[in-house]
C-alpha cells in the first residue's frame, strides 16, 4: 500500500481531535501528529465549554457526530443555561469543566479509536506535488506520505509569549512553540498573519478568603449538551464572584509602562470581545470596577482561574493587582497571566470545505483559521475532518450554509469576511437565529450526521420522532377550539382576560406571557405522553406557535438566500476586466474568489450595485 496513512492531522487540540476522530470513523486510515500526547485536548484558557452561541456550536457538533458535547456532559462540574430570561432562540448552555478529566476522557477516545494512530512529533513541512499535498515532514519520523492533511496547530506556530517586558517562544506556557510549518506554507503561496490572545493568572484556591466572595452555582435542573446523553446528574461545584476596585485600577495603570500591549511589543491583533484587564481600564476609564469570576479548574482543585483578569502585565503588578481585589488579599499565583502572539492563515484562502484554494488536499482548521475558542476550533476540525475523508473517497464535499447551522455561519463568515482579529461566534451573526436554536440542533442536523455514517440509527430516529411530535402538537393547537367553561378558570388563574365564545388553543397560546404548560391538559393522552417523552419539547412547540409569523418570514428569507447561494460563479472568472464594478470590489473578488453570488454579496467592499453588475454579466 502506498499510503499507510491517508489523512494526517497535525495538532491534537480541540480542532485536531474532532478532525482525527471523524476521519477515522469515516474509514480513513488516519494519523494524528501532536507534540505531546498528554496535552491532547488540553484547555489552554478557561475551564469551561459552551457559552452564548458557543453552546449552539457544541450541540451542532454533537448532531454531526463530534465528541465535545458528550465529553463535557461527563466531565463538567457545573452546568448552566444562559440567557434564560431571554427568548428560547438565544438560550445557550455553558459548563465549568474539570479540565483534567476532560482531556483524559478525550484522550481515551482517541487512543481507542480504530483507524487512528497517534505519534508525538512536530510537523515542520508540507510536501506538495502538482498543487496537491503528498506528504508531511516531521522532525523524528521523517517524511510521512498522505493524501490529505489537516493543520490544526492552534496557537503554536511561532508562538511568542509575553509577560511584562519578558518575551519567550512557546505555544502555551510551559509548552514549546512549533517552527517551520508557517514558513513551509508561505513558501507554497499561503499567506499568514499574526494574532494575539491572552489568559489570566491561576491562583491557589486555599489563598482565597471565601467570606468576601459570592458563590455562584449552576442550574438545579441542568440540561445536557448532547442529545445522546441520558441519565444526566452532574456535579454542581460553585464559582465565586468578586470585583476589581479603584485601587486595582491604579495599580494596573501604574504598570502600563511595562505592558507589552501598550509599549508596542505586541503587534498581533487581539480579540476585542475578550479584552485584557489593562485594556478594560484604559478603554473604559469611567468604570470603577469590573467583575471577576473565580473558577475551579477541576474538581477539588487547588488551582483557580481568575476569569476577567486576563493580563500580560509584569508578574509583580499582576500579584499586587490581584491582592487589591476583595477576597484575594492573600492570593498566591500558581501561573501568571500572559499574552501570546501566533501565526494564522487568513481565511479567504479557504473553500467552504476548509480545504485551501491553493493546495488540493490541504485543510486548515481551528485557531490557525483566525478563530478563537474551543468550540469554534472543534466545529472547524469536524468539518475539515469530514471533508478530508470525503476528498479521499472522492465523494461530494460536505458543507453547511448560513440557514442550516451556526457552523455554516462561522465558516461563511470566515471565507467571505476573512476577519483580521480572532473570530468568535455570536448569536447576532446568525441572521436566521430564530430557527437555529440549541434545542433543535439534533432535528436540524442529525440526518446529515446519519448520512455521513456518524450518527447511529437510534438517534437519527429520535430526532425524526421529535420532529413528528412537534408537528402533531402544532396541528392539534391550530385545529382545536376550547369553550369558555373549560379555559376561563385557567385564564382567571393567570389574571388573563376571559373568553366568551370558543377560541382556538393556538390563539390562547399566542397571548403574551402565556405558557404552554397551562394548556397541556387539553392534549389527548397519547399525544401528551409523546410530548413528555423528551424534555423541553413543549417549549419548542410553544416557540413554533407563538412566533409562527416571524419563523415564516425567516423561512421565506431563506428561500431567497438559497437562490443567491445557488448562483455559482465560474472559478475562472477574470475580475480585472469587469469595469462596471468598483476597483475595490474587483480587488476583493479577485482575492476571495467567491464560489457563489451569495458569497460575493457578503464580502465587505462589494456593494449591492457591484452584485447587480456581476449578475448582469453572468446572465449574458
Amino acid at each position, binding site marked *: 500500500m502506498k499510503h499507510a496513512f491517508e489523512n494526517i492531522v497535525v495538532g491534537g487540540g480541540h480542532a485536531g481531535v474532532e478532525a482525527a476522530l471523524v476521519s477515522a470513523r469515516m474509514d480513513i486510515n488516519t494519523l494524528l501528529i501532536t507534540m505531546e500526547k498528554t496535552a491532547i485536548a488540553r484547555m489552554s484558557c478557561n475551564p469551561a465549554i459552551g457559552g452564548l452561541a458557543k453552546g449552539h456550536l457544541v450541540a451542532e457538533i454533537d448532531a454531526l457526530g463530534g465528541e465535545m458535547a458528550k465529553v463535557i456532559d461527563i466531565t463538567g462540574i457545573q452546568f448552566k443555561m444562559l440567557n434564560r430570561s431571554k427568548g428560547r432562540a438565544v438560550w445557550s448552555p455553558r459548563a465549568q469543566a474539570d479540565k483534567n478529566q476532560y482531556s483524559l476522557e478525550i484522550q481515551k477516545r482517541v487512543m481507542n479509536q480504530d483507524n487512528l494512530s497517534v505519534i508525538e512529533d512536530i510537523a515542520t513541512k508540507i510536501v506538495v506535488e502538482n498543487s496537491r499535498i503528498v506528504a508531511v515532514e516531521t522532525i523524528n519520523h521523517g517524511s510521512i506520505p498522505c493524501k490529505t492533511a489537516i493543520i490544526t496547530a492552534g496557537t503554536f506556530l511561532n508562538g511568542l509569549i509575553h509577560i511584562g517586558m519578558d518575551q519567550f517562544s512557546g505555544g502555551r506556557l510551559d509548552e514549546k512553540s512549533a517552527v517551520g510549518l508557517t514558513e513551509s506554507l508561505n513558501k507554497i503561496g499561503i499567506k499568514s498573519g499574526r494574532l494575539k490572545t491572552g489568559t489570566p493568572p491561576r491562583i491557589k484556591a486555599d489563598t482565597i478568603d471565601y467570606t468576601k466572595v459570592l458563590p455562584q452555582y449552576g442550574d438545579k435542573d441542568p440540561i445536557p449538551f448532547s442529545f445522546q446523553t441520558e441519565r444526566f446528574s452532574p456535579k454542581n461545584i460553585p464559582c465565586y464572584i468578586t470585583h476589581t476596585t479603584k485601587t486595582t485600577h491604579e495599580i494596573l495603570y501604574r504598570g502600563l509602562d511595562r505592558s507589552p500591549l501598550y509599549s508596542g511589543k505586541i503587534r498581533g491583533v487581539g480579540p476585542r470581545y475578550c479584552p485584557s484587564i489593562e485594556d478594560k481600564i484604559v478603554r473604559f476609564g469611567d468604570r470603577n470596577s469590573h467583575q471577576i469570576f473565580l473558577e475551579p479548574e477541576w474538581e477539588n482543585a487547588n488551582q483557580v482561574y481568575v476569569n476577567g483578569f486576563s493580563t500580560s502585565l509584569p508578574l509583580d503588578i499582576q500579584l499586587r493587582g490581584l491582592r487589591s481585589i476583595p477576597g484575594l488579599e492573600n492570593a498566591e499565583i500558581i501561573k501568571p497571566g500572559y499574552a501570546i502572539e501566533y501565526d494564522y492563515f487568513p481565511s479567504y484562502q479557504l473553500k467552504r470545505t476548509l480545504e485551501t484554494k491553493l493546495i488540493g488536499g490541504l485543510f486548515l482548521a481551528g485557531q490557525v483559521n483566525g478563530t478563537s475558542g474551543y468550540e469554534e476550533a472543534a466545529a472547524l476540525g469536524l468539518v475539515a475532518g469530514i471533508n478530508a475523508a470525503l476528498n479521499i473517497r472522492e465523494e461530494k464535499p460536505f458543507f453547511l450554509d448560513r440557514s442550516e447551522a451556526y457552523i455554516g455561519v462561522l465558516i461563511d463568515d470566515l471565507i467571505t469576511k476573512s476577519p483580521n482579529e480572532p473570530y468568535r461566534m455570536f448569536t*447576532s451573526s446568525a441572521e436566521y437565529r430564530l430557527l437555529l436554536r440549541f434545542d433543535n440542533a439534533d432535528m436540524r442536523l442529525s440526518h446529515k450526521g446519519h448520512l455521513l455514517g456518524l450518527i447511529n440509527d437510534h438517534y437519527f430516529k429520535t430526532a425524526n420522532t421529535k420532529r413528528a411530535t412537534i408537528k402533531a402538537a402544532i396541528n392539534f393547537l391550530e385545529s382545536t377550539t376550547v369553550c369558555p367553561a373549560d379555559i376561563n378558570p385557567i385564564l382567571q388563574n393567570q389574571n388573563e382576560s376571559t373568553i366568551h365564545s370558543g377560541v382556538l388553543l393556538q390563539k390562547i397560546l399566542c397571548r*403574551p406571557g402565556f405558557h404552554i404548560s397551562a394548556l397541556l391538559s387539553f392534549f389527548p393522552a397519547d399525544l401528551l405522553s409523546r410530548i413528555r417523552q423528551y424534555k423541553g419539547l413543549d417549549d419548542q412547540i410553544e416557540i413554533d406557535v407563538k412566533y409562527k409569523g416571524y419563523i415564516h418570514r*425567516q423561512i421565506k428569507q431563506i428561500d431567497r438566500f438559497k437562490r443567491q447561494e445557488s448562483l455559482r460563479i465560474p472559478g475562472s472568472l477574470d475580475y480585472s476586466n469587469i469595469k462596471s*464594478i468598483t476597483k475595490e470590489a474587483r480587488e476583493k473578488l479577485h482575492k476571495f474568489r467567491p464560489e457563489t453570488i451569495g458569497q460575493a454579496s457578503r464580502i465587505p467592499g462589494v*456593494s449591492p*450595485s457591484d452584485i447587480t453588475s456581476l449578475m448582469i454579466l453572468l446572465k449574458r
Partner: protein
Amino acid sequence: MGVENKSTIVALSTPGGFGGIAVVRLSGDKSFEIIQNLFKSKQQLRHRLAIFGRLYDKNGYIDTAIVTYFKAPNSYTGENLVEISLHGSPFLCDLIITACKQEGARGAAPGEFTQRAFLNGKMDLSQAEGVADIIYSASRSAQTASAGLLEGKFGEIISNIKSAVVDIVSVLELELDFQEEEIQITPKDEIIKQINAVSAKIEALINSYDYGKICREGVVCPIIGPPNSGKSSLFNAFLKEERVIVSPSPGTTRDFIEESIRVGDYQFRLIDTAGIRDTDDSIESAGVSKSKDLLNKGNIILYVIDISELKANVLQLSDEISEKVIYILNKSDLAKPHLISKVKKQFAGQQHYFCSAKYLTGIHEITSGMVKKIERLRQESESVFITRLRHKEALDMARKSLMKSVDSATADNPSEIIVIDLREALDRLGAILGKTTNEDILNNIFSHFCIGK
C-alpha cells in the same frame, strides 16, 4: 470578460422641441467612424476637442455643428463617444439621427447612456440614479437636489438615520450576546422611545418626497370650477402671458388638456378639466373618480369662480384638498368696486386673486402666488428632499418595519424577535445606502460597551 458593446447608440440628449442648441450623442465602438462619414471640418477630430464644421447626409448639407470626440475610456459612458451640437430644431435633429442610424447606429433606449456609464464603471448605482434625475429634472431646484444626491448629502441624512437604528439594534444584540453579569440592560420603554424618534425622522423625509416630485415632474395644477366660470379662458391666458414649455412628461390623463408653463424655478402643469363638462355638468358631480383623482394628484388647485355668479355654491372640499386651493375670482372686469370689496371679505383667510382671464389682468399675480405656495411646501420639507420613488418606498417600508418593532416590543416579545423587525428596517435603508453587516453592529457594540470577561 468586460462589457462588450457591440452596438453603437444614438439619441438626442437635450429636451425635444425648438430651442437654442440641441445635442445629439453617439456612443459605442463605431461612433468615431460614423461621425467621420457625416461631418466635414478643417480640423481633424481629436479627443476632447470641440471642432466646428458641417454635417451632411446622403442628400446633402444638414447644418453647421460643433462636434466633440471623447475617446474610450475617458468619456461619460466609458466608450468612444461623440457629442454633436447643432441648432435646436426637431427637424434637423431627426435628420442627423437618421443619418447616424443609416451609418450603423441604433436608437438608444431611455437611460442607456447612463446604463453604459454604470456598466463601464464610470459611476455607481446611486450616482447613475442622480444623473437620471438631472436629465429628467423639470426645474433648477431638482437639479440642486440631484447634485445633492451625487455629493452624498442625501446619503448623509439616510446614514444618520441608519446609524440611529444600528445603535438600537446594538443595544438589543448586546443583551443577547453577552451574559447578564457583564452588561446593563436597557429598559424596553427606552428602546421604544428611541425607535419612535427615528421613525419620526424618516417620516419627515418621506414627506419631502412630494416636494421632490414637484421638482422632478412639475407642479400639477388642475383648474376647476363651475361651468362658464372661465377655466378655459384662464388656461389660455396663462399660455399667453407666461413662458410655455413643451413638456417632456406625458399628460396626466387623456380626459384633460394639459400645458406647461415655467415661472421662476418651477414648471407648472396646467390642466383644464374641459373634458369633464361634456359628460357631466360640473366637477362636483362629474366623472367622480377621475376628477377626485385629479384633486388628489394636484399640488395646487386653481378654483375659478365667476364673481358675478357668486350665488353659485362654492364646492365643499376636504381639509387636505382645501389646503392646496387658490381661489381665482374671475371676470373682475365685470365687477363693481363694492362687489370686489365684498368678495374680498368673503375670501379673507384664503389665498385668492382677482383677475380677468378675458382681458389678461391679474395673471402674473396668480402665478407668483403659485410660486409662493410651492416655496412654502419646500420650507416644510427637509433641506434635502427625496426625489426618487424607489427611495420613498424604501423609507416607507423602513418606517413600517420600525412601527412593527414597536408593536413587538410593546407586546413584550423577546429581544431577538424585536430585532428581526429592526434589522428589516436596516435592510430597507440598505436598499438606498448599502447593507448594514453584522460586523457593523459588533463594531458598534465593541466601541460603546465594556464587555468580555
